[in-house]
């Protein structure tokens, strides 16, 4: 059964304006702090390693998603990975057209569960699934320990 729209223009409705007046301070967490400290201080990615079943995970966790044991081992895995998928985006989240399209990729690392989603600075015609890519970081002095310390991934 369909219903008939009785009001065509939204502004004809009586309404109150409102908002939820909060902002957020998200906690990096125990494993997240280790990841972003390593990125900032050493310019490298780290994965967590389960000493019980061997599962390696990025982003790192304090627990193993497979065997549920606690994790306290973390492994440097450098900055190089493989392009698992990619897309070229033309609109932002409010529907505005970008001046220049954004190219995003999901990068995975050999033998490790999970991956990193980030910008790609690679010509669209050169993009290929499985290609080797490497993170380009900001200079160490400019890094703040956030995901934007990675400028983009580029061809190796």
């Amino acid at each position, binding site marked *: 059964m369909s219903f008939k729209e009785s009001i065509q223009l939204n502004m004809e409705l009586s309404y109150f304006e*409102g908002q*939820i007046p*909060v902002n*957020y301070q998200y906690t990096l*967490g125990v494993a997240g*702090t280790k990841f972003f400290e390593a990125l900032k201080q050493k310019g490298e990615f780290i994965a967590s390693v389960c000493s019980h079943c061997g599962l390696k995970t990025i982003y790192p966790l304090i*627990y193993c998603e497979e065997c549920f044991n*606690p994790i306290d081992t973390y492994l440097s895995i450098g900055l190089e990975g493989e392009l698992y998928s990619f897309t070229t985006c033309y609109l932002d989240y409010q529907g505005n057209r970008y001046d220049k399209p954004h190219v995003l990729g999901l990068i995975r690392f050999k033998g490790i569960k999970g991956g990193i989603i980030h910008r790609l600075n690679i010509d669209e015609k050169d993009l290929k699934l499985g290609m080797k890519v490497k993170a380009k970081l900001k200079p160490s002095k400019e890094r703040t320990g956030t995901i934007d310390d990675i400028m983009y991934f580029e061809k190796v």
Partner: protein
Amino acid sequence: MGFRKVAIVGAGITKFVRRAQETGPEMSYLASKTALDQAGLKLKDVEMITLGSAPDAFDGVHMKGEYLLSGAGGNNKPYIRNFVGGGTGVFAPIHGWMHVASGACDVCLVVCSEKMSSCHPHPQGAFLTIFDHTTEQPLKPTLIWIFALEMRRYMETYGLSKADIARVAVKNKNNALDHPSAQVAEAVTLDDVLNSEVLAEPVHRLDISPASDGAAAVVLASEEVAKRLTDKPVWIDGVGWNLDTAYWATKDLYYPRYVEKAARMAYEMAGITEPHKEIQVAEPYDPFDYKELHHMEGLLLCERGEAARLTAEGFTARTGNLPTCPSGGALGVGNPIAATGLMKVIEIFLQLREEAGKRQIPGKPRVGVAQAWGDLMQVGTVIVLRR
């Protein structure tokens, strides 16, 4: 009634703190892992998982249940989140009970987690939009306002003084000194509470619980599995829940009828006809001190208007005839909403197993009740446990 018997066989709680370094999934993991270890089980033994958490707006993560799933051990399992506002922490084990009592599974992990510290400048900003957007939000209400209205009506109805109410805060904050998870345990005196900062008369600073981060978890098992795992199963004997309208202004503020209805449902299932005689330990929900009294009455643990006198006479102290909030409650242990309710269920579980350590009440209690409450003075959730 055709339900299978369900026992609690393990429990875990993180510390309750103002701001935890752990993320929500990390806190969920710590509580879940402790509960599983205590039950002597691995995650692979868990067939289903239910998770309770308060509004998404606290953590600032929409689809919070899905976000917490991995830490609660829910990857690739039948997993579902439940939510009834502040009543969630006692509803979550009821939800888990449904899974096991119905025969859908033999082992269910129940996890509750809350990270209120993400919300700035204060979670009150998120609470604002639980009020009616047209008639109440323009007045910029806080939760403390409406509880002040409820507290005054309760006090006036039964001729109670501020001291009558404040004794609950003194008892609970002192009880919490013995709880390893406690955030705001303090050896406060009656004068401390009465002289603390006024927030909205008659509510003072020490009348209320804090905003907290924390998580709690329990493992539920069917009769056969429970008897294999432990010689001290604690049975979920009765469960009840009830919701009244969100138009809170229509209610009798001096009495939580919805809590009574939830309690009667749980007592009937548990075969309890005289709760004030049969129940030996209680954890009524105490986000404000007067709420413990309110809820004792709603839980039919005493006559209406009698709870304050019983508190003053020491009846509800750990050494009294009916200890209430021996844990220290939300007022003393802290109030990470959903985790608080489950902390109360865990306290009854530990008391009945005589594993509550320094908090252990005397007399080998065999029957206890835990209760939570929330939304807009609207929901009661009740669970009866028996050793």
